[in-house]
């Protein structure tokens, strides 16, 4: 049986290789969309932390003022976390970003004390942060409140739309993949059918006759998925080096993709009626 499978795969190796390329290209398009969606989602997770209101205090603000503002902020029902950034902390962060010590350039530390307010998830929206901002700006020792909400929401909305488009597109890719695989399978079976009829007549069981096709589907789908993922990895590394940094799928995602496409292909082969001529 094993030899028969090997013989079958050897006999149709050219067809298997020729079919692998279009199947891989179809998968590549789908995987590329998946990768962009995945990167956007990862970016959105990073952005979630920025749903925070940073309140800068005036230089003349006293420690008691800071305490009273802290007390006001902590009392807010939306408060998840409140962080105090001292002038020294702010200077250290800025120096890390700029790569040089600001006090050496300016001769003094120009950065103010600030409080960073992180809301709980249900309050992570632009409207709430704007209300809160207008409230804290009424304190006389508060310089101003800042948050990135203006563009965050739009980015999230865009991300949502993109995820929907990606899902729809992936379904289309999957349909195209199944149709192409079905066509190749038909072609392969038509070529094999005459021999299958003779072998069945001489005593080979139906399962043994179809087994090489199942094995073809298994090998072909694993091979095409890997090929698609490898081409995408190369493309992603080129994009990362030259344009924008892209995060590639994690190993568990790669594994899940290969398993899913292999399962789809093998199931399709099993449910495809492969008619054996009956010689009736």
């Amino acid at each position, binding site marked *: 049986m094993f030899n028969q499978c090997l013989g079958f795969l050897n006999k149709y190796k050219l067809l298997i290789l020729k079919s692998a390329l279009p199947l891989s290209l179809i998968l590549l398009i789908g995987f590329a969309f998946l990768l962009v969606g995945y990167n956007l989602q990862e970016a959105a997770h990073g952005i979630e932390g920025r749903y925070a209101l940073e309140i800068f205090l005036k230089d003349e603000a006293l420690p008691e003022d800071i305490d009273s503002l802290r007390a006001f902020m902590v009392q807010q029902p939306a408060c998840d976390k409140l962080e105090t950034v001292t002038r020294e902390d702010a200077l250290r962060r800025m120096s890390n970003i700029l790569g040089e010590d600001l006090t050496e350039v300016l001769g003094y530390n120009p950065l103010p004390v600030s409080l960073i307010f992180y809301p709980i998830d249900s309050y992570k929206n632009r409207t709430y942060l704007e209300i809160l901002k207008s409230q804290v700006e009424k304190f006389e020792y508060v310089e101003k409140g800042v948050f990135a909400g203006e563009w965050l929401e739009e980015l999230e909305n865009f991300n949502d739309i993109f995820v929907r488009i990606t899902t729809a597109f992936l379904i289309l890719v999957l349909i195209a993949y199944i149709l192409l695989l079905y066509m190749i399978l038909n072609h392969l079976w038509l070529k094999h059918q005459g021999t299958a009829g*003779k*072998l069945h*007549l*001489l*005593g080979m*069981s*139906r399962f043994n006759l179809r087994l090489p096709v199942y094995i073809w589907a298994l090998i072909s789908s694993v091979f095409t998925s890997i090929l698609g993922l490898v081409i995408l990895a190369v493309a992603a590394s080129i994009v990362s080096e030259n344009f924008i940094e892209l995060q590639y799928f994690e190993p568990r995602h790669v594994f899940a993709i290969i398993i899913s496409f292999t399962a789809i292909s093998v199931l399709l082969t099993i449910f495809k009626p492969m008619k054996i001529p009956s*010689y*009736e």
Partner: protein
Amino acid sequence: MSTKIPCHMAFFLFYHYSMAILKIDELTYRLPNGRALYQDFSLELDSSAGLLIYGPTGSGKSSLVKILLGLTRHYRGRVEILGKELKRLSKAKTTELRRSIGFQMEEPVVFEEMNLMQNISVYLNLSRQKHAKSEIISTLYENGFSGLRNKRLSALSWGEIRMIEALRILMKSPRLIICDQPFAALDDDTMEWLASKFRAMINSGSAVLATFSRPEVRDHLDWPEIDLTR
């Protein structure tokens, strides 16, 4: 020193070898257009016996062979092969039964893209029989085919292919052989060669049923005959 066979084994062997290898009882078969080919047709074939079925074109020779091979099931009556009633067998069991007998269809069932050796090896493998390569080569040599053993079957003539089909059945040595017009389109010498192989099969204990439409076949085989002419 004599070997004693247990009683139940003796009974099994007696039953196994005394029953008819092929038994047809009141077979009635109609073509899809309603034309009846046989009406209450019966026959019995024991081991080491040969039977010829004669009939002109359209008399139902090939249909009978297809019924006997389990390829056609739309008939009335009872057909038993090696003690098994065909209609009671599942499709898988029918395939298994076909594997255990030898047969020739009206058209050769060979793999044209394979060579002679591969064809015989595949056939014997399918029959679950292990034959050494040297054994196959020696049979081919004895029958004058050693020079053709690496040739694809697409390069051989009709007569040569029919002879190879007979040879592989001979190597398999089944208990029952069913052949549909094995002598069709063969010259006189080849017909005699094939007849001698059939005689050898019978001498080794097989039962052979062969259909024919050419009267010259009677010059080579003097077996009992059933005429399907109406």
